[in-house]
């Protein structure tokens, strides 16, 4: 029997009992719709969660900060073991599973534009990381001349404020952004500095301020009542500190001439690693620093007994691991070496396991409806073999191959499964749209995809539905195949 004859014959048989076929398909349709919708919710929710985590950094990434005392043991002697130096960077990159280590140089500073003051980080990252940033306008920094070329984070303007009496007024108070074009108006940034000068005199007085500067958003928060917990910036806007720093301008503040060449893409309150800073190529930053301050006098670089080191010391490393399963091991190894290391691994892990539960529950609910539909198919096909006993007998007498009879019934069952799955898929797409529309109305951004039908879900659902039909049709098909040809001859 040819394939085409098989298909047209089984379709004809189904069409003969239109109502029953339609009802059975309806059952499959409901089953398929329920399972697709449920899984689309699970997928959509998982994706949303992953996306929200991704803004905090990748899941295969470990952030390494210096040891407890950043290499200084208080006696002016440097402990080079836990310094984030080029040497240690090389050590990390030799570790198993580590694919790449990228250094980050950080400076903190503030600037005044008109009545506004803004404070933020200047970050030097490697070229690849810089190239990954999407720009809303402008271009990536090129070779810096006298001015350090940077791109500005998408939410950097939220850290600008002005004084009204004793009050600081900023974006978080007014929800209004200052009308500043950073690409034109940002010319220079005052950097807060602490030189790791081994010389005794300044050391003690500096230790205080350095502590306050580098420990993020801790000590000074209580004093700046009006400011929210926005960011590291609030520390530096604190009037107390600005007075302290101004008194030690000679060694505390250094001016960087800056050129903003581009603005990062994103809404003003989208958070990401770099959204509140100025970002530049670390090699350009190094060259700029050497050119401006001389090789032996680079700010923030520690000195060993007053002598400059002959390598760079960074503020943090990003350690990229090959697979997320290895993050824990590498992280532990780095911590054992005396560094502080953190990753998103734990967060992602717990999310994954809770998502798995959600998937299981949702999939299970969908599966029940599907199972009922499968029983419906089996029932319909079984009825059909009883009804057609005589006809099957005639076919066998006339020489229809037993395997063809089996295939005929299987393809009828598969047909029901396939059509049900297909129509169910279209239903699910419609339902998914409705769910997303409703969900989107409930959030400010107006875009919420909690139900997501990926192409592989669509494919798998229709395939599974068809397969389910075949499984459900298997026993009826076997029964039909084994019917005696004598059924044709017996007269009732």
């Amino acid at each position, binding site marked *: *029997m*040819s394939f085409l*004859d098989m298909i047209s*014959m089984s379709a*004809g048989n189904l069409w*003969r009992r239109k109502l029953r076929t339609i009802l059975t398909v309806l059952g499959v349709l409901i089953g398929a719709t329920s399972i697709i919708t449920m899984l689309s919710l699970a997928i959509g929710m998982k994706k949303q969660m992953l996306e929200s985590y991704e803004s905090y950094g990748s899941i295969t990434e470990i952030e390494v900060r210096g040891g407890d005392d950043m290499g200084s043991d208080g006696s002016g002697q440097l402990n080079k073991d836990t310094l984030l130096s080029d040497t240690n960077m090389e050590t990390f990159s030799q570790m198993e599973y580590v694919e790449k280590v990228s250094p980050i140089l950080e400076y903190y500073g503030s600037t005044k534009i008109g009545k506004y003051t803004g404070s933020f980080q200047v970050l030097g990252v490697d070229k690849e990381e810089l190239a990954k940033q999407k720009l809303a306008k402008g271009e990536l920094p090129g070779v810096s001349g006298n001015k350090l070329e940077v791109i500005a984070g998408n939410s950097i303007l939220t850290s600008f404020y002005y004084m009204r009496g004793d009050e600081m007024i900023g974006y978080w108070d007014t929800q209004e952004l200052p009308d500043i074009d950073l690409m034109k108006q940002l010319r220079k940034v005052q950097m807060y500095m602490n030189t790791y000068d081994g010389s005794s005199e300044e050391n003690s007085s500096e230790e205080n301020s350095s502590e306050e500067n580098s420990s993020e958003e801790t000590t000074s928060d209580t004093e700046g009542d009006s400011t929210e917990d926005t960011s590291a910036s609030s520390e530096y806007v604190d009037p107390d500190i600005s007075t302290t720093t101004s008194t030690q301008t000679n060694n505390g503040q250094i001016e960087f001439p800056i050129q903003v060449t581009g603005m990062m893409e994103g809404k003003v309150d989208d958070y990401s690693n770099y959204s509140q800073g100025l970002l530049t190529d670390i090699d350009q930053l190094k060259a700029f620093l050497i050119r401006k301050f001389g090789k032996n006098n680079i700010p923030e670089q520690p000195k060993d007994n007053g002598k400059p080191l002959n390598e760079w010391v960074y503020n943090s490393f990003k350690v990229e691991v090959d697979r997320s399963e290895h993050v824990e091991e590498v992280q532990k190894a780095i911590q054992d070496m005396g560094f502080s290391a953190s990753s998103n691994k734990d967060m992602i892990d717990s999310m994954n396991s809770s998502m798995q539960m959600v998937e299981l529950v949702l999939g299970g609910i969908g599966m029940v409806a599907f199972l009922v539909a499968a029983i419906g198919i089996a029932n319909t096909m079984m009825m059909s073999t009883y009804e057609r006993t*005589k*006809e099957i007998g*005639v*076919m*066998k*007498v*006339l*020489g*229809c*191959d*037993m*395997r*063809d009879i089996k295939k005929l019934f299987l393809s009828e069952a598969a047909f029901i499964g396939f059509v049900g799955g297909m129509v169910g898929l279209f239903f699910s797409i419609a339902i998914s749209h409705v769910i997303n529309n409703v969900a989107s109305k409930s959030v400010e951004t107006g875009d919420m995809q909690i139900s997501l039908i990926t192409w592989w879900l669509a494919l798998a659902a229709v395939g599974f539905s068809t397969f389910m039909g075949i499984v459900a049709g298997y026993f009826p098909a076997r029964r039909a195949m084994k019917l*005696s*040809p*004598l059924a*044709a*001859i017996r*007269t009732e």
Partner: protein
Amino acid sequence: MEQVEQMDFVEAKEEKRKCVIDVKNLYKVYPLGKNYVRALNGVSFQIYEGEFCAIVGTSGSGKSTLLNMLAGLEKPTKGSIMVAGERIEKYNENRLVKFRREKIGFIFQSFNLISTMNAIENVAMPLVFRGVPKFIRNKRAEKMIELVGLKKYKTHKPNQMSGGQQQRVGMARALVLNPTIVFADEPTGNLDSATSEEMMTLMRKVLSEKNKTLVMVTHDNDLAALADRQIHIKDGKIVKIEEGNER
């Protein structure tokens, strides 16, 4: 005297004719509760190519059982069956289906047409099972329908035809595969006597034209008398073999 001579003549003729059915010592026993029913109780005979042979007997004598075994629809309890050159008694179901598809045509008492298909489609059915493309099988089916004189009813569904017409479609269906042997179990059992006559005449005409062997079961002695040879059965045994009118 004359009869003896004639017998000799027939015998001699049969020697030359090809034997298409050769049954030896056939038994069929059905279990019935704790007892057994001997539907066939040791049957042996031959049927030759081109012959029209009737199996005659009263109801329950075992005619259908015998025919079903010849057509490979049922397996014997004991004995050997050679049909169209094949020893079918040991064949499994799959092999039997193939055997039927290749060598056998079957006409039913209750016509057994597929109610959703028109005449052409019904006649073309066995060709579908052989995998013949639609274009070719429809052409062949049309030809067969014309042969049985139903040219005007090609696209009629079974419920739009009389019993006699339906049985003619059944006949066309049995012949469309060009089988070696056609079996018919009470083909006129559901028809009135006038139509039965008509039917038998047509059947004889078509089959002798194509030199096909026909084995027909009937309980009607008048119909059996039309055959070349009658095999009389009673209680599962052959009681006599009667030569009828010569072709």
